[in-house]
Each structure stands twice: as structure tokens, then as C-alpha cells.
């Protein structure tokens, strides 16, 4: 089993790009190695974006694959603090 691949999230993770991110993240998980989601570049995040991240995490648990979130940007940190959620 090779190391999880790195996935760089776009600057915008909102309802506009949520569908696109969902497809791409699911495709990444599809190769069976897990994923490292790089959140350092996220400048815009809404509930839809948050839901995609949580879906990815849940899917990782379901498929027993490692899913890791790294380097959350200030925007991501703020949203997580607001909702008292952890990724």
C-alpha cells in the first residue's frame, strides 16, 4: 500500500465548487490509498464546503482508508471553531 496522495483544495470551497470537489475527492479515494487533503489554500468556505470535507472523512472511515486534513487555513480554522466540529 503506497502513501496517501496529496489533494490540494481550491481557493474556493463553497456551494459553487462543492459538486466538483466531491467528484474529485471520491475519485481520489477510489484508488484505494487514502488521501491527504491540503487545506492551506482555502480562502472561502461555507456549509456546503464543510459538508464535502465531512463526507470525505466519513467515506474514509467507511472504506477503511486513511484520510488526513493538513495545514488548515485561518478560514477553515474559524469555521471549525464556529461549529465546534473536528475533522
Amino acid at each position, binding site marked *: 500500500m503506497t502513501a496517501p496522495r496529496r489533494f490540494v483544495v481550491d481557493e474556493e470551497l463553497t456551494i459553487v465548487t*462543492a459538486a466538483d*470537489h466531491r467528484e474529485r475527492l471520491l475519485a481520489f479515494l477510489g484508488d484505494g490509498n487514502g488521501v491527504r487533503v491540503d487545506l492551506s489554500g482555502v480562502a472561502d468556505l461555507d456549509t456546503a464546503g464543510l459538508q464535502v470535507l*465531512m463526507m470525505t472523512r466519513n467515506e474514509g472511515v467507511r472504506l477503511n482508508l486513511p484520510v488526513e486534513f493538513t495545514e488548515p487555513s485561518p478560514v477553515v480554522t474559524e469555521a471549525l471553531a464556529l461549529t465546534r466540529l473536528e475533522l
Partner: protein
Amino acid sequence: MALDDDMREALDMFITEARDLVQGLEEGLLELEDQPGGGETVNAVFRAAHTLKGSSGLFGLQHLVEFTHVVETVLGSVRDGVLDVTPGLVSALLPCTDHISAMIEGLAGGRLEPDAAQAADGARLLAGLEPYLADGSAMTAGPVVAAPDAPPPEMAWRLVLHFGEDCLRNGMDPLSFLRYLSTLGTVTGVVTVTDRLPEAADMDPESCYLSFEVDLVTAAPKTEIEAVFDFVREDSDIRITPAESQFDTYVRAIRAMPENDRIGDVLITSGAVTELEMAEALRIQQERVVREGNQPVPIGEILIEQGIVPRAIVDAALTRQRRTTETRSQDTRTIRIDAARLDKLIDLVGELVIAQSSTGIPNSAGPDTSSEAQGEVMRLVDEVRHSALSLRMVPIGTTLRRFERVVRDVCMELGKEVSLVITGGDAEMDKALVERISDPLLHLVRNSLDHGIEPAGERRKHGKAQQGTLRLNAYHDAGNIVIEVADDGRGLDRERILAKAIERELVAPGTTLTDSEVYNLIFEPGFSTAETVSNLSGRGVGMDVVKRNVTALRGSIEVETARGIGTTIRIRLPLTLAIIDGFLVGVGPSSFIVPLDRVTECVELPPGPLGRDCMNLRGEVLPFIRLRQIFGVPGQPARRQNVVIVEQSGQRTGLVVDSLLGELQTVIKPLGILFSRVKCISGSTILGNGEIALILDVGPLIAGHSDREQTRQAVPVG
């Protein structure tokens, strides 16, 4: 200040007296407005204020003394001819009488000091009188200082936010609501509920699946928190409830509130419920009544069920409401009676004692004297009863005259010109009844002013006198008192009522209804129109409530209307609630009492086929009800049955019974709570032989029967 019993008693008398004085003050002021020159009226008004001040001083009620002192000073200037009576002056003084009256009711409720709101109110009113005072001479008693407004305390709230699935697509981001909430106060806790988030394959990335539970501590009122969610309310489920730790605060606040018998108002004032939530709850209540046709579910239950307020707070408000009602029923503990009537009663009792003792004397003069003495005792007992009952009777005029003020105020508010004509004010009825009918009457009066009488312009166009007339008339009629509220306004619009009833599904489209059936629809629950609710500010109080109140007093209500000419609403009430003249009838082993004033005649049931429930009465068809059948009395009918013919709102119906047992003065004993929903029976009484007889409530009995008949006939036979 603690009150001992003597003091309490004296205070009760003061309260009774003060109420009369305040009413005299108000009536006098209204009269002065009409006829500014009335010297005697000016004197009377001045004296009322003066006496009020003096008596308040005796009890050390400083706030009342200070307030009435200023009013008295102004009236003093009027009496001395220094000040002219103007509508402005009357408008400034009338709210003062309201204020005095509110303080007196506060006393009756056991509060010897005004609360902060009342004190502020008083200060404002006195400021309004300032222009009428001669150079500050009045303020010797010292100005009433209003309590400074304390900043509202911080409250803890629990918000449960279920956003609609589409809210993201509509451009609403729950995260921004959370952010905004933290600007309103301190968010002490958030739980994000992720349970609804589906598996990746089923997830629509543009739907919202998250819900939030937020704990917020803020000084902002509930309405402000509610307003945050204005844009998402449509398709989301937003619940804002006081946090559990705050229950005590609300319960305490509700206990400290001034008297109010509307639970809705209590809850809204306490801040636990907003107007919007109350409106929604009322809508749900109405909807259920219309849909299920049951008695309305208490509004408190709906609020709890909808998760708007916790049970603890509703219970506190209910207790408050009950306490108010108790204070009010205590009010009737002291009543003023005419000394002559009391003397007459005592005379009668004296005669009774003499008559009683003469029955005990051995009948040396022959057997006749004993029965004669017995007859005399019977006659006296009857007279004593009459006389005792008349002690509770008060003329209805006092209540009716109160509406002069209402008419004046409502007309000013609506910009209409209406004169009030009161007739038959000396008709008497039971004091308890007078008190309980005044709210329904108030509603009818406001309704007439608001919807009945047209604005001056419209009246001129139709060639009517510019000034509308509202008539209140009272008279006795066959053991009842009848009160009429009549206006010369536009009348009811038959077509509009019918259209509305069809729209509200009260009537099936295409049904043929008589005029009176159509007009009676306005008393149906769920009929009151939206505009009625807002204009009359009577939350949930519509014509249906008026009707329910009247029915609860064993009365009836009817409408008479002519398009463009006016509407008359007629309330018919029994004179007293305590005793009725009854007609005793027997069905098998059971006895029933029919109120005698409903009975028109008795005839023997003619032989005929058993299944047919009508008979020929002097050429007219008379439908009848077999009591044996309707109450499920076992056994075979007597060989010869009788029909008691009763009349209700012009409709005659027969009641088939086994035997006629004669007239009986009946002391009504209410049925217990257990039977409170039983229709057709209004109470019970105990007969001389110890048996119980049920008192029939003729109105619902006949109405219920015609409903059943209609249903039966609607089902195709065979």
C-alpha cells in the same frame, strides 16, 4: 405594610367605593365634554376626585393621594371658572381615571405600591396635565418619580436550528447565521448535528444536511433573535426556547406580573414567546378546530407541543391566570345593596318565623288552619327566595354606560362619528352575570364600530346621516334579559360571508342556506377574518368566543341584519344562574327538568307509527325528540306518553316523556368537571325525595337533534 383583618375589610370597602367614584369621575368627564357648562356635573366630578384623595390618605396610599391631588387641582380650576372644559382637557383627564382605576385594581390584587410601569405611566400623565395647572401650585405633594430604566438583564437561550435542504441553493449559509449570533451576545455552546449527512454516494453537495443547537447568552429580546432568521423561516425549523437554567427567572417574572387573564399576553410580556410564535400557535389551534371540529386545544398545550416554551413556564403563566380569575371572583364577595331591599328581606324572614310557629300550635280551631298555616309558610319561603335573589340584582345600565368611553376612544382612533344611545339601563340582572357579559358586549360594540358603521364620507354617499348611531338596549322578556347591540351601518354582506365560509370549508359549495343560517356563520370558530384579528387586537377573540361565552351563561345569541340599514345582535340571558323555574318530567325511572320559560304547552302524544318523529299540532308539523331514546333510558314507554312543547329561538320542538310531574323551583347544582363536555345537560338538582334530576339544556338538545336528523336524511335509504 402588613394588613390585619380589620384593615383588610376596611380596604375592601374603600376599593368598592373607589370603583364607584372612578366611574362617576369618568361619566362626569364624558358628560362635561358634551355639555361643557354643566355646573352640577363639575361639582360632582370635583367631589369624586376630592373624596378619592381623602380616602386614599386614610389608608396611607401615598401614590394615590399624590396623583389624585393633581387631578383634583385641575378640576378645582374648572369649578372656579379659571379653566374651560375643552376636548383636549377631557382627553388628558380620561387616561388619568384609567390610571387611578388601574391602581385601585392593583390594591384589590393586594399590591399597595404601584409597580415601576405604573409609576412611569403616572408621571407621564401628570406631565400631560401640566399645561392646565396654574403655575406649579399643584406639585406641592411632590412629583412622582419614575423608576429609571434598568438595562435589560442577560438571558440564556437555546436555539435549535434545522435549516431547510434548499437553504444553500437559496444563498443562505448557516455558518453566517452562527457568525451573526455571536454578535448578538455570547455563544456559550454549539453542537453541530451531522446525523442527517448521507453516505457519499447519496449526497447532494448542494443540499444542507447540518443542524445546530446553539446556547446563546444575550440581553437582546427574543423578537430580535427571532428576526435573525426572518429570511430562512419559510422552509426551516427554528426553535428558540429559554435555556433550562432560566426557567426560574421566567417563572418569577410571570408571578410578579400585573393581573391578566390572557395566557397569551402573559407569555408574550414575559418574553418567553414572541408575537409571531403566538400567531402561529393560534393559527394551528384554529386549524384544528376547523378540521376536527373539537373543542379548541388550550393554547399552552400547543406552545409546548411545538417546542416553543417548556411546560414549566406555561404552568407558571396558567397559575398566574388562575390567580387573576380568583381575584376577580373574590371581587364579587363584597357587593353593595339597596338598604330597602335588605329591610324587606328581614321583614319577610320575620313573617316567616311567625308563620312557622303558628303551624306548631295544636289545631283547636279545626283541621283547616294547619294547612292554611302551611300554605302561608310556602308562600313566604317563595317570597324570601325572590327577595334574596333580588339582592344580587343590579341594573345593567352601569355596565352599558361604560361603553360611552369605549365608543369615544374607538371613534377617535378610527375617525368616525358615532353617537351612543342607551335604553333600558334600569333592567336588572344578576351581578355575576353582568360582570361576565361585559367582555362579550365590549367585543360586539367594537365590532359594530369597526366593521358595521361606515366612515362619514361613505355614509353621506349613501344618503345617511353623517353621524352613525349605536344603540344598546336592554329589556326583560319571559324570564330572560335581552341585550341588543344595534348599529345603523352597512349590514352584513350575505354573499361575502358565504364566499368566506366556502373558502374556509365551513360550508360545502352549492349548499342552499337560509339567510339566518348564513348570518350565524359569523359565530363559527375559524371564521373570523384576518383583518378582524389585527384591528381588534383581540388575540384569538372572535365572534366564536363571544358565542361561547354567552352559551356558557346559558344564553343565546342571534343576528338580524339588513343590507345598508344596519345590524342588530341580540343576546338573551337568564336573569340569574342560581335558580330556575323548572318543569319536572319523568321518563321511566329517571326525572328531568325542562326550564319552565322554554315550555309553551303540553299535549298528549297522539297514537301513530313508532318510527315517525313528528306529529300534527293544530295543523302544523311539530318535530319531536324522544327523551327515552336520546338518553338511552331502559324499559318500555308508558302506555300514554306526553309531549312537552319547547320553544327555542322561534323554533318549536316537542319532547316526548312518560309523565308530567309539575312545576318546581330548581336550585341548580353544576355538574362536575368530569361532565363539563356533556351537551344537552346544563346541571342537576336534588329533588324532595333525594333523587337526582338532570336539567335539560334545550338549545343544544334541539340543535343536536336537527343535526342528527339532517345526517340521517342525507344518507340515502335502502
